């Protein structure tokens, strides 16, 4: 086809009666892109730019060094410890629960109950959850008064695990459901034991999904603020708590740009975690087709 012919045909199109106007495919994603742009990219951009300024508005690249000072490093280490413990414990227990649910009847009452319960409990957090624990095992709690309730990170990690386990059930169950019964039958007909099946077939198949889900739990714990702030609020252990201090200190320590810088540090932390998650998901998807 010549260029001239193409031009003629394109020019003739609008005059043809009854022909449907064909919008480009990407037009449909515009609302989504607009939404992401306004509520994610734009604020993130402002935050990153402000992180490298000082309160008077001029550039301040030297401030980044405070991220590596002993005090701020302590908040990042605190956040990391808490996220790691609650993510590992949540992933292990959640995976066990998910396996138990998956091995039951596909449309049985137990499965429906567990899924509905997980859906609700994974969203149960914040002040309500902290007070529920406070009322049960806090210093004047109804059940008992463990001395480690207020020790960081164990006491608060226990509270986090409460919403991490159900979240793990929700995100890990599809992976277990993806294990085909035929694989088990095939390995057994070749004479493998249960241990060998999990060691050489089931385990390697589930590993990427398991670690991917654990990374998601890690990021989930990193952003939690209301729960730990209600658990205790006279000491800052984690980055989100210190951001709150930087925004609202009435004793002269408030500095919006320092808060932006801390948030920028968290973005880097989440970016690393989510990149890992994406890589593992890509590997998991290869197996579960």
């Amino acid at each position, binding site marked *: 086809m010549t260029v001239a012919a193409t031009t003629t045909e394109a020019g003739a199109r609008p005059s043809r009666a009854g022909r449907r106007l064909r919008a480009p495919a990407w037009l449909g994603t515009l609302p989504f892109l607009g939404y992401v742009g306004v509520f994610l990219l734009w604020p993130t951009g402002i935050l990153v730019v402000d992180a490298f300024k000082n309160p008077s508005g001029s550039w301040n690249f030297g401030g980044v060094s405070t991220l590596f000072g002993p005090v701020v490093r302590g908040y990042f280490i605190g956040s990391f410890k808490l996220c790691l413990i609650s993510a590992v414990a949540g992933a292990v227990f959640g995976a066990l629960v998910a396996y138990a649910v998956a091995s039951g009847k596909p449309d049985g009452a137990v499965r429906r109950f567990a899924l509905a319960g997980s859906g609700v409990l994974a969203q149960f957090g914040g002040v309500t959850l902290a007070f529920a624990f406070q009322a049960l095992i806090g210093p004047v709690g109804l059940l008992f008064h463990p001395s480690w309730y207020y020790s960081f990170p164990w006491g608060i990690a226990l509270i986090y695990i409460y919403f991490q386990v159900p979240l793990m059930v929700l995100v890990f169950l599809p992976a277990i459901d993806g294990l085909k019964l035929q694989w088990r039958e095939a390995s057994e007909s070749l004479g493998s034991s249960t241990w060998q099946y999990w060691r050489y077939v089931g385990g390697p198949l589930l590993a990427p999904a398991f670690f991917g889900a654990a990374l998601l739990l890690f990021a989930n714990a990193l952003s939690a603020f209301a729960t730990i702030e209600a658990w205790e609020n*006279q000491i800052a252990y984690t980055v989100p708590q210190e951001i709150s201090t930087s925004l609202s200190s009435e004793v002269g320590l408030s500095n919006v740009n320092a808060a932006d810088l801390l948030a920028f540090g968290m973005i880097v932390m989440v970016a690393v975690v989510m990149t890992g998650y994406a890589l593992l998901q890509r590997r998991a998807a290869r197996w579960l087709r």
Partner: protein
Amino acid sequence: MRSPYRFTFIGVAALALAAAGCSTSSTSTSSGGTNWATVTSASSGGGMSKLVAAAKKEGTLNVIALPPTWANYGTILKTFTTKYGIKVNSALPDGTSQQEVDTIKQKNGTAAAPDVVDVGVSVALANTSLFTPYKVSTWSAIPAAQKSSSGLWYNDYGGYMAIGYSSKFGTITSMSQLLQPKFKNAVALNGNPTAANAALNGVMMANLVEGGTASDIAKGVNFFHDLKAKGNFSPVSATGATIKSGSTPVVFNWDYLNLPSYVGVSNWKVFIPQNAVLGGYYAQAINKSAPHPAAARLWEEFLYSQATDGGQNLWLQGGARPVEQVAMSSNGSIDKSAAAKLPAVSGSPVFLSQGQATSAANYLATNWAKAVG
């Protein structure tokens, strides 16, 4: 207030509405030949009766950030209106000190600008250019450390840092008792001292008890380190709810927020450790562009009046310590039954200077989490 940003937008919207509602009232800067906007005392303006007449003519007073349940302000506002027939516009009752001065900057030139403010001392010191000097007739009764010598600002009411506690512990007579095992998880501040002013002053009071000075808060941080090591420091900050539920049975807070009548718990006691009297007072100041200059000055005269129904005794009835309390105790004008409800004090009060408060905050920023984490 711990999160000043949350209210800003609402505040601006409310003020815009208030401005729309008040824009018809006119300002009168002179009355009977006296320009009250520049008068620095009632006598230099021709005496109290002239001030009252001029204020009545203005007819209105704009106040801001005065919660009716706080320090008896509900009664104080009502008494002022009844006594002088002056209408009081009370804007943003739950606003912060910073919002008060921000409102002055935004609203000056309109009839809705605040005439007077009641702010924390640090905010007052940072904004003296917005104020005009005025000395009330009882000026000499205000201790010298609690006013600006030129009259730009003056403490009004406040209190001392105190330890409130549940009487199930018996009677506490010294702070070191709090290290005993029976106070496990019991001792609370009012917030994180790197963020909340009351908590910072709680640590400073402990510092004074431990022999520290106002310029160096290290010994106070050390005390809380020991408290945490014994397992006695409650990480939950004290609120009305935690006190009522019993999860914070020992609380470091200003005495006017720590009285049984205020916390609403009957078996609550409060004491101020010996020779660790740390004062925290609010300050009054008049907006130099006040739309009602005479009413603003009359309001200050009323607040600093030592009469039975004057501001000083009304604050005292609300559990706050009026700044002229010492003078009123010696001249007999004090409401004795209200004064008797406040915890006893021994030793002379200490007030943090701006520099001391800043250095304490900076020390806490690097050491607090380390010491008690």
